[in-house]
Structure formats: C-alpha cells, structure tokens
C-alpha cells in the first residue's frame, strides 16, 4: 500500500512532497531537484552513450540496469520500468543511439548538424538547445521517442524483452470468463488461447511511459515536448505495413492471417525530417483551451491496486485510446491546428551560424559545404554569407563496389581530384 501512495504522490505532488513521503530521502532528493531544474525528460538520452554495446559481446541482460551512472540519469518511474522489464534499458539505449545516428544523417547538410556531446551526467546530450522551443528541439524529441518505440518493438521480436504483451492481453480474459469455461486465465494460458503479437503496441506504450515521464509541467514547452514525442511514436505506428498469408485448405485463402511489419527506421527519419520542414508554430492558448489538467488526469491510473502488478499493462487501455487532452493553437490563426503527427515549436533560435556555447551550437565555421549544390548545403547558405575557401584535394574513394554476401564489399580504389569548400 505504501508503494501505491508513493507513486500516486509522485505523479500529483511536487518534488518536495515526494521527498517527505519517501523513505530513502537522499537518493531521491538528488533526482527530484535535478530534474526540476534541468531539461526535464531529456535526461535519459544519456544512456545512449552509457549503453554503447561492445561489438561482439553484448551485455548480459540487466547489466546496464546495474550501471550506476545510468541509474543516476533516470527518474524513479523510469527505473521502475527498467526493473520490471528486463532488457528494456538495453533496447532504449539502442533506440537512443539509433535516434542520434538518424538525426545526424538527416541534418548532415544543414547548419545545425545534430551534434552531440559525450556528456553522461549533468548536461544534455544534444546541448542546451533542447531547452528552447525551436523546430530542432521538436525534431530531437520526436525522433528519440520514435526510435525508442521502434527499438522496443524490435527487441520484443528478438525476444530480448520478455514482458512484451499478448495482443488480447486485456480483452480476452473478460470474454473468456463470459464463455463459462471457468478456468483461471494466466498469461501463459492467454498465449494458448489467443496468441501474442502486439510488439508495436508494447513499444508505443512503454515509450510513452518512459519518454514522457519528464514532461509533467504545465508550461507550453512541456506541452510541445509531449506533442512532439507523440508525433514521433504515431509516425512509427502509422508506418506499420500489413502482410498476409493464406493457409486454409490446401493453402487456399479460406483462412488468411495478417501481421504488421515494422518499418525501416530510415523511412521514419525521412518522414520526420519532412515534418520538421513543415513544423507548425504554436502559441500558448490563454483562453483556457490549454487543458493542462486533462493531460495529468489521463496519466493517473484509474485503478490504484493495479499498480501492484506491472504498471505498463494496467494503463494500456485508457492510454492507447485517448491522446493527451490538450490542443495547441497555431501561431497563425488562419492555419489549421497541428495534427497528431505534426511537429510543433513556439520560438526560433537567432541562428546556427555562430558558435553559441549557451545552447551548445557549434556554428558553421569550418564546415564543409558544396559550391554547386542548390540545396541547403550550398556554401552561401551554409556559411551564412561569410564566404568560404576552396581546396583541391585528391580524394581516395571506393568505387564500383560489388557486394558479396554476407560481409564483404569488393571495391575499386578510385583517386579523383575534387574541389572541397569549407566555410570561413
């Protein structure tokens, strides 16, 4: 019972109250105060660098969880999730890495190139840019949340997380008991009765629990982060593709069974980049349309005793159906309000041309650009009009590559003279 009170308080009350309600004050104090002051939900991004898996010997399950440096970056709820779901942290770490790689790939030609810093503690992985409500932040939040969803779903298919749930985990037992078969349904019997296959659902829900847990405030930035997190996840979900197989009499289609195929993450990255290019600017709606309470009440479990069991499973139903209960208003009243999959932001940074240590912006000094390109990597754009210098170098490149399964690419070595431009 004590546990229930603690959790409920943790959600409702401020950090200070949590401390009083808690027994092990010391550790919690550090977490609570830190998370109150800093970039909220983004702390967990740090595990991307902590959980760097070795090439040939992946960590044994649970090893990452024990890592104290990882432990420190997580909120209490996140730690509980990690404790209850073996293998979850590894999947999230993989997801965070996936997000960083994809972000850097998508922004390789832009002024802001999604640079990360190898800081585990204290500072945010992406720098303080995430404390601003700009489109880049929107992209970071969306892609990390999408990558976590994707990665957890993948880990479920790989068998790395054992708590992934059965498709009808929630509905079937009720119907089952109506059928008067009279037996007690356990998880295992569920599998026998109706099978298990909802990996993306698990990924979606756990990602929501884990990623969104930092955004508990009522400010516009938190609303924005929540919206962008949700946008990333929805995009993964909407890109699931259906495949079917006929297996009826003599292989005919009298019985056909379908399943959902997880999309390639590059596709998600591209789509999110498109959303970033068309991100919607929003404003705080001061006429009371910003129903911050609703977002909160949604996050509370309806049945307190349910918390004693696995917390993800219990909240599944009300979570999946209802989105967070707020609506953001577009900055330009003539525009449509942002949809679920749209990225939103509310301010622009002055620019990414100059180095700005305050926000962790590297600036474009010394960046490579392309004189002839008509895109965003054009030197005039990239160098913000400062000009550039051109070097002629001999580039040794692999060319005419032929791939040999599994692991060999045979290429010719080509030497070409190339002009390379760098910004001043």
């Amino acid at each position, binding site marked *: 019972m004590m546990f229930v009170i603690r959790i409920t308080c943790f959600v409702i009350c401020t950090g200070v109250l949590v401390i009083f309600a808690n027994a092990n004050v010391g550790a919690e104090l550090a977490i609570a105060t830190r998370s109150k002051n800093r970039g909220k939900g983004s702390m967990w991004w740090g595990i991307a660098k902590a959980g760097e898996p070795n090439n040939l010997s*992946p960590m044994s399950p649970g090893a990452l969880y024990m890592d104290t440096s990882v432990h420190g970056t997580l909120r209490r709820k996140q730690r509980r999730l990690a404790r209850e779901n073996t293998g979850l942290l590894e999947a999230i770490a993989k997801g965070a890495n996936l997000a960083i790689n994809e972000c850097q790939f998508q922004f390789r030609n832009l002024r802001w190139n999604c640079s990360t810093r190898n800081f585990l503690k204290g500072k945010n992985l992406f720098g303080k840019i995430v404390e601003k409500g700009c489109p880049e932040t929107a992209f970071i939040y969306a892609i990390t949340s999408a990558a976590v969803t994707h990665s957890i779903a993948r880990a479920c298919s790989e*068998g790395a997380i054992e708590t*992934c749930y059965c498709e009808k985990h929630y509905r079937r037992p009720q119907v089952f008991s109506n059928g008067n078969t009279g037996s007690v349904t356990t998880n295992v019997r569920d*599998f*026998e009765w109706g099978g298990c296959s909802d990996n993306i659902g698990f990924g979606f829900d756990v990602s929501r629990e884990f990623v969104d847990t930092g955004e508990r405030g009522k400010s516009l930035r938190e609303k924005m982060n929540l919206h962008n997190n949700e946008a990333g996840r929805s995009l993964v979900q909407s890109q699931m593709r259906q495949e079917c197989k006929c297996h009826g009499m*003599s292989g005919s289609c009298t*019985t*056909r*069974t379908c399943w959902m195929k997880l999309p390639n993450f590059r596709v998600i990255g591209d789509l999110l980049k498109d959303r970033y290019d068309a991100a919607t600017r929003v404003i705080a709606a001061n006429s009371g349309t910003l129903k911050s309470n609703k977002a909160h009440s949604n996050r509370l479990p309806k049945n307190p005793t349910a918390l004693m069991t696995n917390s993800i499973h219990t909240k599944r139903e009300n979570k999946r159906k209802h989105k967070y209960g707020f609506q953001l208003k577009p900055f330009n009243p003539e525009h449509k309000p942002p949809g679920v999959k749209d990225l939103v932001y509310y301010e622009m940074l002055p620019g990414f041309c100059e180095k700005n240590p305050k926000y962790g912006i590297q600036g474009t000094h010394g960046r490579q650009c392309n004189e002839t390109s008509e895109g965003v990597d054009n030197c005039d754009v990239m160098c913000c009009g400062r000009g550039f210098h051109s070097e002629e170098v001999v580039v040794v490149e692999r060319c005419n590559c032929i791939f040999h399964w599994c*692991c060999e690419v045979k290429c010719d070595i080509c030497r070409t003279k190339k002009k390379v431009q760098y910004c001043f």
Partner: protein
Amino acid sequence: MPGTILENLSGRKLSVLVTILVLSQLACFLVGLISPSPASTQSILATVCVDDKPQDDKLNHWFDLGCSKKIHLEREESTIGLDANNLVFAMQMPLHGQDYSSWQQNLVGELQIDVIYKEGQKLSNPMIELLLDARIAYSDKTKDGGRTPWKYYTHSQTKRFMDCIFNETFVKDGYPYDCTMVPLFELGSLFHDYYLLNLRLPYDKKKEINTGLGRVSDIYLHTIHMNGGFTKVWVSLKTVFFPIILAIMIWFWNRVHSLSRKPALLEYMLISLGGTLAFLDLPIEYFTLYFDMPYMLFLSDIRQGVFYAMLLSFWLVFTGEHMLIQETGEKNSLRKYWKHLSSVAVGCVSLLIFDLCERGVHLVNPFYSIWVTPLGTNLALTFVICAGLSAGIYFAFLCYMIWRVFKNISIKRSVLPSMTQARRLHYEGIIYRFCFLMFATLICAAVTICSFLLSQYVQGEKKYDENMDLELTSVIHTGVYGMWNVYICALLMLYAPSHKRWPSEPICAEGEEVEFSRLSNDTSTPNEISSLTSFVAKANIE
C-alpha cells in the same frame, strides 16, 4: 407408396423444425463470439550468431538466443572477417517465455528478409534466388521447470525465390527494398513445447549460390499458428455435431430399411453425404493432444475435400432426380450421372494430387515447396487450373439442370388449374416445399460466399489500432461450419421416407393443414422417392 417427410409434415411441425434449425444455427454464430481469431502470428527477429567452425557441420550443434557470439548486421565493423558460412540466424519459437500447446495445432513459417540499398550497390537482379540451409530442433519442458536440450527435428537445403522491387524515385542510401515474403516451412503438428530454427545462407561464387543477395539488415520469421481458443471452440462444435449427425444417420437408414422397397439412389446419396459429414465432424483433434500427428493438416484437407466432393455430387443427383422426365421402370443409378459427376471427380482428383505434392511431401520435408522449380510450378498450375475448369463445368451443368427443373415445374404448373382443387393444393404444397429447399440451398451457398468475401475484407481492412472486441473471422468460420451441418441434418431429416400410408384417411392436422390422398391411378415406380416426381410423371400422362 410413401413420400418423404418433407411433403407429409404439417406446416406447424415444419415451422417448429425450421425454428429449431435456425436457433442451432444462431448458436453456432454465437459460439464464434467467445472464440479468438482462428490463427495468430508472431514475428521473430533472427539473432545472428557466429559459428566459428562452419566446416565441421554437425546436426546436433544448435544456436539459440543464448549463443556466445552475437553480431549485428547493421554494424559493418562487427562483420569484418566473417564469412557467409559463419552466420547462423537463430529464431526461437515462441517468444516471451511462452510455450506451444498442442491445441495450437500447426505452425507455418514465413521469412522476411530485409535487403537494404547502399549507395552504388544496386541489386543486379531483382529476382533473387536464395539457397537456404534450414534446420529445426525441438525441446520440451521438464518437470522441474527447465528445458530439455535441443533435439534434431528436421533439416533441409532448399531453394526459394524472392522478388525485390526498388522504387527508383526514392533511391536513397539505407532504404529497404520492397521484397516479397519467402514461405519457409509448414509443421503439421505442434507436439513439442519449443522449436528452434537455425538458418544459414551459404555463399559460393563458383556454384552461384546466393550471389544475388544484397546487404541484409534483418531477417524476420513470421510464424502462424492456430489459436488454442479457436481449436477448443471448433473441436467442441465437432464434438456436439458428431453424435447428432450419427444419430440422424442411423434413424434415417432404419427408416429406409423398414420400407419394403430397395433404397433409392437419392437415399444412397443422402446417407453417404451424412457419412462424409460425420467423417468431417469426427473430432480426431483430441488425439493430437496425446500423439504427435504431423499428418493432421493433410488429413483435414482430405476430410474437407471428400465432404465437398460428396456435397457437389449430391446437388447434381438431387437436381437430376427431380428432372421430371421419367423413364419408366428403370432404376436410376449413378451410372446415369457419370458425365456430370466426372467433372467433380476430375476437379477433386487434381486437387488431391496437388495437395499430395505440397502437403503430402511436407510430412517428409516441412520445407518442401512445389513452386520453386519451373517444372513443379507448371505441374501445380496445371492441377489448379484443371480443378478450376472442372469447377466451372460443374456449375454450368448444375445451373443448366436447375434451369430445366424450374422450366418443367412451370410447364406443369400451367396444367394445375385444370386439376381438381384437392389435387392442386396438394401439388402446390409439394412444389412449394421443393422450392423451399432449393431456396435453403441457395441461402446457404450465398451466406457462405458472402461471409468468405466479408472475412477477406475484414482481414484486409484490419487497421492496427482498431479495438474491436468482436472477432468476426471466427464468428464467420463457426457460423458457416455450423450452417452446413444444420443444412445436412435438415436434408437427412426432411428427405427421410415417410411412414404415412397411402391412401389413408385425410388427416386434419389441428384443422390447419389438410393432407390429401393420392390419386388412385398412382402407379409410380419404386425408384421415385418424391411424390413430386410422380406428380410430374402423371402430369405427362394427362
């Protein structure tokens, strides 16, 4: 001579019977509500293990999720120095610490190989020829909660084709090709608790083995198994129907034998139709709980095939026997229908051969597929087309015969006003009941076709986030299955010979229905089982 029960049953009794049948039909639909969907899938992502010694190729060395060396194909640096023969794709079934139950009946495996486009490494041929070295092991739960070590189940080197499309307008680095699924195996029984698939994609440049393969990022195995809940509901249906159909058959045959005449052709057809239905209803699925029966898939195909063949033949003979052109004194036999029935026979035999070639061979080699060799594909297509053609010919025949029956009926109907009122009412009743059964057949066929189309639509439209509590597919399956059971029970009951003696006193059944005595000059031959045919024969005389 007695007619069938259908003609002699009073309207009230008929309506009571029909109500009972409709209610049991409804019950079959409702039973589908508690059942989950017929089958579920589980998508299993392969764990890539490294086999250090591929040369000593032992069949008792297995790689599962706990293999010592794992790599990730997407990390190029981790694959350096490795050979295709080093890689073993391990898929452990089922996932999430579950174990298979015998109630889940069978397992179908489908491979999804994700091939990634890399800059400058376009696939040379979009039709990739794969050589798969697949091995399956099994393991069981031990009493103390552990698992027995993996034991060899089956293995095969098999060829498959994978068609990969790449959308040229989106040529981007890291994008996946759109490749077709590769059917891999079909296990007819799920007797063991755990299964393990070890897949290798060997590479040999000289022999051109797997040379067309691009950069593989992931291999998924999509497994399909029946749902235990559905099997339970299904077997319960069979358990209920089997004794009923058996009892009705015994009752029917007793009735036929208590007559002084020999059984008519239609009665033989009816009893064999009942027999095939009883064979279909026989709940041998119970045995799969205690014995390993990999031939269950094949057997259920055979059972369904025999039933459908009998049903189709019955319709032909039934229509033919009501053709109303009566040859005198000649006992009808199946020989008269050999032309019509040969279409059913050809269709069924070609489907049987096709099934033997695919599912029959699966008993020996679960990885076998007839479609991978050009010869096999042609052969399979020949049989399937042959079956399709005979189905077309069959339905053309059937429609033609039904059209002729109705034409004859309408001709005779025009003679009706010239008859006495008693006779006219009598014959109108018979025609009405005959049409009633035709109508029932039509409804059953229409419901079957519609539900089949609906289930295709439902499965096609199933959106991911849809929270529909009702499992329409299983409702359709149990409903249609129950419908044909009810239909054949009704046929057996209504077409059983009646014991009412002719001529007899006009019976006033509760004052509603008057049953009229036959005409005195009724000298129908014993092979006419329906008074409708005798009526028409008489009308011809008139």
